[in-house]
């Protein structure tokens, strides 16, 4: 059995008007202080007011939400007993909203236990989940994955269960128009990475491949535009669509090695998710095409679909990798670990931890070529120096 989870998606101009159609009495909004400061809650709360839905705000979500924050949110939501939980923000806020609605259904659980191993059945209890993204990156609005950080041992925890796929995702461009260029670039790299990794994932199917392919082409085309001119509405809209499709495809297939290695880097050195996975993407794709004929064909398919018709499969795949590097440069993303300002000695000191984390990510296991300890060490060293992978 395979399955494909998907939310109801309202998108495009005035998508927030969909809020007038929802039924309920109380909404619990999960967000962060920055979103509140930017005034991004107002267009949502205005609509909730017009629909006579009461609301309360939990704005304590931090980047890479910690287990403690989720616990706090779980207590607050339990007191409020809403019928909707609405995550508004980037991936962190939306992921936190997912964890919080699961705790609303099962308050006795620890946040670490919010996984496929438990049943939650929150819809049977009249609870629903909505996600409203303010970045175009993780596609968390159309994914059931929850990434939390375990601050005790500097590790990212991949949690979630298909049950927590949002009921509704609202993709309204007004929510992303003000995103600064740096955030546009960081989150945009995640879109490209997720879309490509979902397409070549060993868990991928013809159903998950479609959105991934389109998301890759959209992101390659529109990310530079959205970065250069944040007011470019068409670019913003297409990046929103691409992000959603990347998340949708990826949570139904799984991401790959750039996510496995990027999570290891982010877990230890605390950098934005998209920047870390984007950094590793060219290296991991090189590693994959050197060892998997099947994946090489798929990467060449993506390249051709994106207009990079360079000849043989290998040449096409290499053209796509080169395109990713050029794009990253164009939007001022680091091309090597060294460029992130990480000291070489520090990098070597953390090598065992990096490898250990990457080895034990499901996303590493679903890559079409799975590295062992030795290859991972080499890959981390090559990526530090900015050297193309030749093994």
């Amino acid at each position, binding site marked *: 059995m395979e399955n494909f989870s998907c939310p109801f998606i309202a998108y495009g101009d005035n998508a927030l008007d969909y809020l007038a159609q929802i039924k309920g009495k109380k909404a619990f909004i999960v967000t962060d202080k920055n979103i509140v400061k930017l005034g991004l809650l107002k267009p949502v709360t205005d609509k909730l007011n017009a629909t006579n839905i009461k609301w309360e705000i939990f704005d304590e979500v931090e980047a890479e939400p910690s287990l403690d924050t989720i616990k706090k949110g779980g207590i607050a939501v339990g007191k409020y007993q809403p019928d909707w939980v609405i995550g508004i923000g980037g991936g962190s806020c939306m992921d936190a909203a997912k964890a919080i609605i699961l705790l609303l259904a099962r308050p006795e659980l620890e946040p670490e236990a919010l996984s496929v191993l438990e049943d939650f059945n929150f819809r049977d209890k009249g609870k629903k989940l909505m996600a409203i993204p303010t970045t175009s990156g993780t596609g968390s609005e159309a994914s059931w994955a929850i990434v939390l950080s375990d601050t005790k041992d500097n590790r990212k925890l991949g949690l979630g269960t298909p049950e927590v796929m949002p009921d509704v995702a609202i993709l309204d461009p007004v929510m992303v128009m003000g995103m600064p260029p740096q955030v546009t670039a960081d989150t945009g790299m995640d879109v490209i990475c997720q879309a490509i990794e979902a397409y070549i994932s060993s868990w991928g199917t013809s159903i998950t491949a479609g959105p991934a392919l389109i998301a890759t082409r959209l992101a390659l085309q529109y990310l530079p535009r959205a970065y250069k001119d944040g007011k470019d509405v068409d670019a913003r809209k297409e990046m929103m669509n691409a992000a959603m499709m990347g998340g949708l495809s990826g949570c139904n297939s799984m991401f790959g090695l750039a996510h496995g290695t990027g999570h290891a880097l982010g877990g230890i050195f605390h950098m934005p998710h998209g920047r870390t996975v984007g950094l590793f993407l060219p290296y991991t794709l090189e590693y994959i095409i050197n060892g998997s004929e099947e994946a090489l064909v798929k990467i060449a398919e993506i390249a051709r679909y994106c207009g990079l018709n360079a000849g043989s499969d290998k040449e096409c795949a290499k053209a796509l990798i080169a395109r990713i590097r050029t794009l990253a440069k164009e939007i001022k993303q680091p091309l090597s670990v060294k460029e992130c300002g990480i000291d070489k000695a520090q990098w070597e000191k953390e090598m065992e931890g990096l490898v250990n984390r990457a*080895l*034990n*990510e499901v996303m590493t296991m679903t890559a079409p070529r799975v590295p062992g300890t030795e290859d991972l060490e080499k890959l981390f060293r090559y990526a530090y120096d900015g050297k193309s992978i030749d093994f």
Partner: protein
Amino acid sequence: MAKFFTQEWCDLYKEAINNSAAYEEAAKTWEGDFYFITEPGGPIKEKGYMYVDLWHGKCRGCEVVTDPDKYKPAFTLAAPYAIWKQISTKKLDSTKALITKQSKLTGDMAKVMRYTKAANELTNCTMTIQTEWLD
């Protein structure tokens, strides 16, 4: 060649695990025993229990158990026969089986999550056994 879910198969599984350098490396700090449970259905008439004791990269014991009270393992992994067959022949990933609720794991999830690679290597071990399937 050994029939699936017999003591003969368990012996071969134990041997395969103990011969796997990749498993040993990935599970060198693992401590925890399992019941692998086959739910009735298809060629399986009664619930079957296989006890697997995994410790620091090695398999200390693997046996078919008729009395489920014999051990109190830290983890249980239960699935119908058809799903076990799919997992053991790598047609279905063991994590994907959990996500789609085709198998059910009990025990400390946070602990298991840190050993994804080891879980994968355990499946690779089943692939090395010449298995006579029951259907």
